[in-house]
């Protein structure tokens, strides 16, 4: 029918590039995890931990995350609106501008040009590139939706629209800075205000980049993979509005016990706990959509990735509120527990859903059947095991570290010096580094499988526009 209309070339290009940046992120992640145990692996000045860690996070969040969201949003928006993209030319320009931005980001971060703000390290000229990129993307998505040929707007489109406006507001406010030169600027906010604005941004980047886009994708890909519709449209409506309303109150849970006003911290703590409800609204919606379909966990590798993904989302959104409680934060904040938490979200939830989505896209963008399902299963187990070892070892490390930091002698003195606590972490850091290698191996198999699919998979014809 409308076979030739949809633009799949742009989807394919974004998929390919985002996987490349994802690989960069994982490689850098593995390198810096070894740097923590072998400080000689720091090669000053460009390849030190302090400069590489922002590269790891930026390549992961913006290269792999946002890059693949571009691909999937463009794929999904065309299907849900039953029309081609509003502008193919704009999308093509966006692709090259996206890659230029990521390359500029990587180079400048290694050169030491950064604002120091977590997940917003890029200096002002690249901030401007990011804004242009986002405006182009937003216009294309919004215009495609406005000019759609399907009356209904499926829930995925709502999550997309919220993402567009959420990221725009967050990024622009947190980017306010006064340039000194092309490579250096100072924040428009000072001290405690700057911290509060930064974590309002930082935490809601988790909402608007690492939650709403994967949910948009999950709500589309899960029914497509299982062949049965989502359990409850009403539940998804309630979860959507309460999620985007409550998230924005919670940034200061990153700043418990700091000089940020107490009432801001308390509100953040309360809303963090309340966020369990909308988060689990989506988790339940996912689980209940599997009613009568659980056998697909054995038979359908896509479902495995998706259900494990939403399960990690559920665990993540229980653990997060726990950490947002003052007394628990006093114990666990600043320890290795936190990277353990974060990586369950990124390696577990977000990446699992994205792996499923890319496998789902593979026949549709390469025009060939997936080269090997057994390899996809192997990929699944390697990333699952790698991620579990990562998170569990870091949680144990965090608890031990926190226990030692706070341990007191009967005379009221500290039981351990800082170095005594640090040396206890080396075994855990070794384990974490190797868990990264396992994960990297899984992603290597994923990439190999895709390359083989594109080059020598069995051609498909009918599936392309399904």
């Amino acid at each position, binding site marked *: 029918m409308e076979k030739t209309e949809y633009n799949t070339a742009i989807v394919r290009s974004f998929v390919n590039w985002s996987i490349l940046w994802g690989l960069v992120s994982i490689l850098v992640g593995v390198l810096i995890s070894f740097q923590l145990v072998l400080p000689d692996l720091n090669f000053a000045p460009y390849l030190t931990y302090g400069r590489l860690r922002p590269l790891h996070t930026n390549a992961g969040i913006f290269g792999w995350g946002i890059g693949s969201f571009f691909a999937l949003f463009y794929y999904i928006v065309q299907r849900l609106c039953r029309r081609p993209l509003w502008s193919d030319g704009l999308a093509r320009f966006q692709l090259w501008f996206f890659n230029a931005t990521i390359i500029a980001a990587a180079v400048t971060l290694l050169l030491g040009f950064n604002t120091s703000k977590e997940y917003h390290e890029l200096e002002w000229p690249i901030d401007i590139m990011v804004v242009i990129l986002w405006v182009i993307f937003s216009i294309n998505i919004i215009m495609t939706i406005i000019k759609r040929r399907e009356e209904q707007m499926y829930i995925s489109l709502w999550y997309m629209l919220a993402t567009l406006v959420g990221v725009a507001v967050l990024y622009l406010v947190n980017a306010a800075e006064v340039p000194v030169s092309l490579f250096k600027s100072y924040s428009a906010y*000072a001290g405690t205000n700057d911290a509060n604005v930064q974590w309002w941004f930082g935490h809601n980047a988790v909402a608007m980049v690492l939650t709403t886009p994967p949910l948009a994708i999950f709500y589309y890909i899960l029914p497509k993979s299982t062949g049965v519709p989502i359990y409850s449209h009403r539940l998804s409506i309630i979860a959507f509005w309460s999620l985007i309303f409550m998230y924005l109150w919670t940034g200061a849970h990153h700043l418990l016990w700091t000089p940020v006003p107490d009432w801001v911290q308390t509100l953040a703590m309360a809303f963090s706990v309340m966020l369990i409800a909308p988060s689990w609204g989506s988790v339940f919606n996912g689980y209940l959509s599997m009613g009568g379909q659980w056998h697909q966990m054995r038979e359908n590798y896509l479902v495995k990735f998706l259900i494990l993904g939403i399960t990690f989302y559920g665990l993540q959104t229980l653990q997060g509120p726990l950490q947002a409680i003052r007394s628990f934060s006093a114990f666990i904040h600043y320890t290795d527990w936190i990277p353990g938490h974060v990586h369950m979200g990124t390696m577990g939830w977000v990446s699992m859903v994205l792996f499923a989505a890319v496998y789902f896209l593979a026949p549709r963008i390469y025009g060939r059947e997936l080269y090997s399902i057994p390899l996809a299963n192997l990929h699944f187990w390697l990333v699952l095991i790698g991620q579990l070892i990562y998170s569990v070892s870091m949680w144990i490390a965090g608890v031990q570290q926190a226990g030692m930091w706070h341990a*007191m002698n009967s005379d009221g003195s500290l039981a351990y010096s800082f170095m005594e606590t640090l040396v206890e972490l080396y075994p855990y850091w070794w384990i974490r580094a190797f868990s990264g290698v396992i994960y990297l191996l899984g992603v290597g198999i994923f990439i190999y499988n895709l390359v083989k699919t594109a080059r020598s998979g069995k051609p498909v014809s009918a599936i392309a526009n399904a």
Partner: protein
Amino acid sequence: MWEKKPILLLLMATAAILVGTLITMVLPFAWVNTEADRIAEVTPYTPLQQEGRDVYIREGCNNCHTQTIRPLVAETLRYGDYSKSGEFVYDRPHLWGSRRTGPDLARIGGKYPDAWHYQHMADPVGMIPKSNMPAYAFLNDTKLDPDYSRKKMKVLDFPYTEEQLAALADKTEMDAMVAYMQKLGNDIPWRKAAQVMVVGELHNPFLGDSSVFPAGQALYAEHCAACHGEQFEGGIGPDLADLDLPDGELYQLLYNGIIEGGMPAYGQLGSDRVWKLVSFLKYSKSH
């Protein structure tokens, strides 16, 4: 109906995210960094200190070091007085960090002498054997640029003199980094306030007890040897070979440190361990 109108949905979503934003992000500006927060002793960074701060940002030190001390017992014992909002009013951006792979630095200023920082920054593992901090010796290689620094001070609206700027020309990034370290958290006189005044006579509970020497030796190796030498021969700190102070005085000195001399206070080790250290320092050499 709104679920079929994308522009309306966009506006409603914007309104939903702005409520929490206005209350928890915009509203606090009415309290934070106002006169109520102001601390008279806290001063802006000098050109040299600000250059050091910029190196700290460039090298991403904030990825491993925090700069906020929470009002928790263990934390104030380990790092010093808890952080106050007024101490950060000149920080653009803030550098509170989120992970303590290394120790908190909010009050590192004045803890050690300059020489300690120069040596540690150039070769951390050489000084603290099991440390995993990268070496930053290359900071010695780059000189500062007074003109660039002037532009920075103007943007930040900090006071400066031309002499301060001219002096930068023969300073290195390492000098700047050390100057920044010494400024951190040191504007308010918290070290003086934290000192313990001992009333009456002090008695060494381990007097003549050689069984505590191994414990004392281990404490010396961990906390003292980097500055005073493995064999008491001195280095950053003075030679201790002919240390001759009464036990009580030595105890007070270790407990409170010497603020002017840049010797850290070891009261956080607790009375017991400080006495063991005293015993080791004074009597082990004669055995």
